[in-house]
Each structure stands twice: as C-alpha cells, then as structure tokens.
C-alpha cells in the first residue's frame, strides 16, 4: 500500500471519526457547538418534545447576536424579544453557558469564539450559521448547519457527514500595499464564481496567507461559504499560537505546550493531495467593490460597472441585467462615481479590533460626508472595550460616525439597523443579496478601509490614492 501524505482537513476529519461504515455517511464527533437565538429555538423544542437532553453542555456555548439592538435600551421588537427570551430559557433549562446581552462577553458568535479561546486548531466546530467557516482560520474544521442538525448535535454531539471533496486555493505572490484580506477573498470569488466551491472543503495557502494576521485570516475563511464551499481551513502557525495564548479557554501551563506541539502536526504534509488546485494571483489585485447582488459580481475600484452583454453565459447575462436593475446602476459607470447613502463597518467578516483600527486610520481627522449616515458596530463587547481604550471610538465619533453596541446589526438587518428601499450602502459584511440589509437596499461589499473612505468622500474612492491626497471635505 502506498501511504500518501494527508492534508490538514484529512487529519482533522480522521481525528473525529466515531463511526465509518461503507455506504453510510461518517459519524463525526463535534468538539464545539456554538448557538445563537435565531436557528436554535426549534432545535431545543425538538429535544423537549422527544424528552432528550443536551449530551454535552460543556461543549456547547451560546450568545445573542443576530437580532439584538445596537442602541442602548430594551428590545422593543416583541418577536426579537421572544426569541432572545427563548434562548435564555433554553440555556437555563439545558445547562448551556450563555454569553447574553449585557454580560460583557457577548458579541457575534464568530467573533467571541476565537476571542474567548474556544476556537482552537484541530477542533470540529459547528453552528447554525453559514459563516461558521470563519473558525477555519485556526485550522479547525468549522461549518454551518441547519436547525435539524443543531438538534442532532445537541442530542448526540455528532453529525452524519459525507466526506467532501478537497481543494487547495493558493494565493500566489505578495499582497500589494493598501490591500486587505477582504480584497483577496472578493478577488478570489470573482475568479472562481459563487458556486466554484460547492461540494468542497478548501484549504487556503500561499505566502500571502502566512503573512496575514488572525483577524485577516478570519475574514478570508468567513467568506468561504460565499463561493459555495462549506468550510475553509488555514494551517495553524506561530501567528495562530500567539493569538490564542492566554485567552480564557485556551489551554494553560503544561497543557499549552502539549497543545501547541499537537497543533504543529496538523499542517498538511508536503505530499498531501487535493481533488482540485486553484491559484489566485494577488500581485495585480486592486481594492475590490461588488456591483451586483452576489459576492461574485465584483470588480476593482478602478474599473466600471460591467455590461451584461459582456457575459457569454445566458443565465449570467440575465442575472447581471436583473442585478443592474435592482442596484440602480448602468453598464460602464465608473465605480468611483457611485455615491453612497450609508456606510456599515461591522459583521463577522470585518468587525474585529484590527478592522476597526484600519478603518480609524483612514477616518482620523476627516469628516463623514453630509449625505452619508455611517455606522460602526464592533463585533463583540470586548472589541468595543478594546477600541475605546485605544480611543478609536472618539476617532469615529469626531468624524461623524455612530458608535454602536456589538451585534450582527446591518449585515442582515434582523435588528432595527436596516437600509430603506433604494438606499445604497458601502458595507464590510459578506452578502450583497437582494434585500439582505433591508428590503430594496443596495449593498456594495468592500474592505473596512474602503468603507471608511467612502464615508468621508460620499462615493467609492481608491484607498491607495488617499495617502497622497488630503480629504476634500
């Protein structure tokens, strides 16, 4: 038998096999189950109806994020309140640790997992949320599940999974100055298409990945689902270990060195093989801006809105035409001439401390364009405290931004933070689907720096040019 090397994904998968019978899906053990208010009530109700318990409350952690208001005060939406109350009651009844609103440790589930040190290399992590792929940045196998699977994990701490195909996505070359992880992943999605990863688990590799901070790696892995792959992993390295060391749930003392030694073994073997290998060249990348209604409809800021006629595939052409109508754009319009009404800096893609620092650097000393309403929503209560201790809140407030409480907020508009019909938003979130940020709202996905610059100028600008020019407002 020829023994070939194993990839990071294969190592993590193999470590979690409870049962593997030919012709059946693999029964996979789950190390960490993250829970939020929107996709869990029906799962807890299912347990209750069947008289089941939560098998491992010690491996289950809940938070409130999707529909919490980001302004102080009580929850006034009765349906949101009922859902939040249900989560609190379910966590109490089933013995699940809850990081609820006001606890000081609440926040977006994909921000607090890493921040608390719950997210660790080699773990299997699931959550009833498609952006669970975020945690793959640590070399964990992390993916989103539906409510039936949430109930299954609560009851059994396992999931039945078909072994996915594997893909290596290699970012080649050094990332040019002024570019971010957001531009890398948007550029990649533009290249491979929104369904390019369907059926795959992807490993992100290349020198430009190794050079990224954990925050930036999370941005990359977060948007894995936006091109159809359910999970995206990055091999853990010194950057990963430095981020995790000393965090509340990270191993301590001797356990820490043992854990790091084990984590070092997770990286893909040099002779590991993949079903597919894709290369994305980042050396010519420019800041990315989406123009349409899915994340694959993206162009460089220096470019123009594409002509639907330029698409060879008939379905793509029709989709582009529908997108331009919905977005209120015309073919050939320069991206830099598109004016925005709203700016949203936040979401599980770009709401971590480093994102806020990067945005604040652009904002410092500037003023939000009078036609723009701009919002900063930190990803967690801890990110908010950290930003305030660095004075970032004041930078944003002085410029005319609103400084809000932590939550998912305008990424999906389940709380009161929504776009009005026809309003156009530069957003650091992950989805520009129709109606995503509010019915009739028009979303352009960008990096935190690009969003901050759009807020000051009232339209999209190339952040690479800003260093040379003063803000003209």
């Amino acid at each position, binding site marked *: 038998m020829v023994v070939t090397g194993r990839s990071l994904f294969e190592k993590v998968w193999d470590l979690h096999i409870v049962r593997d019978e030919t012709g059946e899906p693999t029964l996979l053990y789950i190390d960490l189950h993250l829970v939020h208010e929107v996709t869990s009530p029906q799962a807890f109700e299912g347990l209750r109806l069947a008289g089941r318990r939560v098998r491992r409350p010690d491996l289950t952690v809940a938070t409130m994020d999707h529909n919490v208001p980001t302004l102080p005060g009580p929850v006034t939406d009765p349906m949101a309140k009922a859902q939040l109350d249900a989560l609190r009651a379910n966590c109490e009844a089933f013995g699940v640790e809850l990081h609820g609103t006001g606890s000081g440790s609440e926040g977006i589930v994909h921000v607090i997992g890493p921040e608390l040190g719950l997210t660790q290399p080699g773990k299997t992590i699931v959550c009833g949320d498609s952006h669970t792929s975020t945690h793959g940045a640590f070399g964990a196998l992390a993916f989103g599940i539906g409510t039936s699977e949430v109930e299954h994990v609560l009851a059994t701490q396992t999931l039945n999974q078909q072994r996915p195909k594997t893909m290596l996505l290699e970012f080649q070359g050094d990332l040019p100055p002024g570019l971010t992880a957001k531009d890398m992943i948007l550029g990649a999605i533009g290249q491979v298409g929104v369904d390019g990863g*369907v059926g795959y688990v992807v490993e992100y590799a290349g020198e430009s990945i190794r050079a990224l901070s954990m925050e930036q790696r999370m941005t990359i892995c977060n948007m894995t689902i936006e091109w159809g792959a359910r999970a995206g992993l990055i091999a853990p390295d010194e950057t990963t270990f430095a981020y995790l060391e000393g965090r509340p749930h990270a191993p301590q003392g001797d356990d820490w060195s043992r854990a790091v030694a084990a984590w070092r073994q997770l990286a893909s073997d040099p002779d590991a093989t993949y079903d597919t290998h894709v290369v994305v060249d980042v050396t010519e990348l420019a800041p990315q801006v989406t123009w349409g209604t899915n994340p694959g409809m993206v162009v460089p800021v220096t470019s123009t809105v594409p002509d639907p006629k330029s698409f060879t595939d008939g379905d793509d052409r029709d989709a582009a035409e529908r997108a331009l109508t919905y977005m209120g754009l015309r073919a050939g319009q320069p991206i830099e001439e598109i004016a925005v009404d709203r700016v949203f800096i936040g979401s599980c893609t770009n709401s971590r401390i480093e994102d806020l620092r990067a945005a604040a650097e652009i904002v410092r000393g500037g003023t939000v364009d009078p036609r723009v309403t701009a919002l900063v929503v930190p990803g967690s209560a801890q990110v908010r405290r950290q930003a305030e201790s660095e004075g970032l809140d004041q930078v944003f407030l002085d410029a005319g931004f609103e400084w809000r409480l932590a939550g998912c907020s305008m990424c999906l508009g389940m709380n009161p933070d929504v776009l009005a019909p026809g309003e156009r938003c530069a957003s650091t979130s992950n989805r520009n689907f129709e109606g995503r940020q509010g019915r009739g709202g028009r979303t352009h996905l960008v990096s935190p720096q690009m969003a901050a610059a759009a807020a000051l100028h009232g339209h999209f600008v190339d952040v690479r040019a800003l260093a040379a020019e003063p803000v003209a407002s």
Partner: protein
Amino acid sequence: MKAISEVSARVAVLDRPDVDTDQIIPKQFLKRIERTGYGQYAFFDWRFDEDGNERSGFALNQPQFAGARILLAGRNFGCGSSREHAAWALQDAGFDVVIAPSFGDIFRSNAAKVGMVIVQLPEDQVKELMESVDLDRGSELTVDLEALTVTTPEGRVFPFAFDASTRYRLLNGLDDIDLTLTHEAEITAYETSREAR
C-alpha cells in the same frame, strides 16, 4: 418525518441561477420560534411589492404553477445562509421536490433532513425539462425516489443519482437522531478514548 417515495405533480419553473436562501425566506420572518407556517412567506420579497400586492411578473405567481409540488430551478439553488427556514418555507408552500443542476451544500442537507427530495440533473437536462413545461396550462412530472427517475408526461425518463443512506431514510421516514442514538455505545467509546489521550 413523513416517508416519501413518488411525487407525481405539477411543476413550477424558476429559471435563474444562484437563488439564495435570503430570497427563499427573507430575514424578517426568521424571528418566529415555530417550525411551521413559513409557506406564506416563501419568496416574499419577489412575490409581493412594497404595498403587499402580488407581482404579476414573478414566475411563481403564474396561475399555471399554482399547486405545484415540484420546483425546477437554476444552478446553485439555495446558496447562502444556513437557515433551515428556507426548506421549511418551500415544503410548507407545497414543494416536496426541487430539481436543479446544483445546490448550496447546506440547503441540500437541510432539505433532506425535513423530508424533501433534492434532485440534481445535468444543466442541459434541467433546461430541457424547463422547456418542456406548457406555459399556458402547466405540466406535470413524476419523480420516483425508488426508481431514481424523473419522467415527463410524454414518457421521457431522466435517471438521477442519489445518496443511498439519505434515500433509505427518506423512503422510510426515519428520524436521524433516533438512528444515530443506536450508535450510542460508539459515541461513548469515542469520548472515553479522546479523554484518555
């Protein structure tokens, strides 16, 4: 879960790619804590205008598609959010089967969990089926999960592949958690061996 084996029913056509779950069930309906009653909200923002009037141009508002239990759709159907509410909404709106060239992975898994049949056919075959639909009077198809075929009224047969374990579970209406709990001893053994490491 209700067992499902053969669906002979009217089809509806939604011929566009990348229909995301935000469209299938918009976020304003995710605040409900119930598992039922989502059908009335399926494709809400596409079906109704801001004033609540039906949009006559939207495919699924066409009278010849009324009562459809089979949905023919474009590639990458159900991409995006993991919300199982999308499957609940489609099923509650009457759809037991979706036929498309490809599907979002999470949607496909969610739909199977609630007892829907997700049929993947090559893109040219899906187009052929779409073109065969009588847009004046509507058409029917038969989807047979035992035989793994889609059959047109004219007798054209399209075989499809389907995961064997999911098929067994759907045909017998088996509960996933009950099945897994028959392996309780193996789960406990795994936990014990992990702790010993």
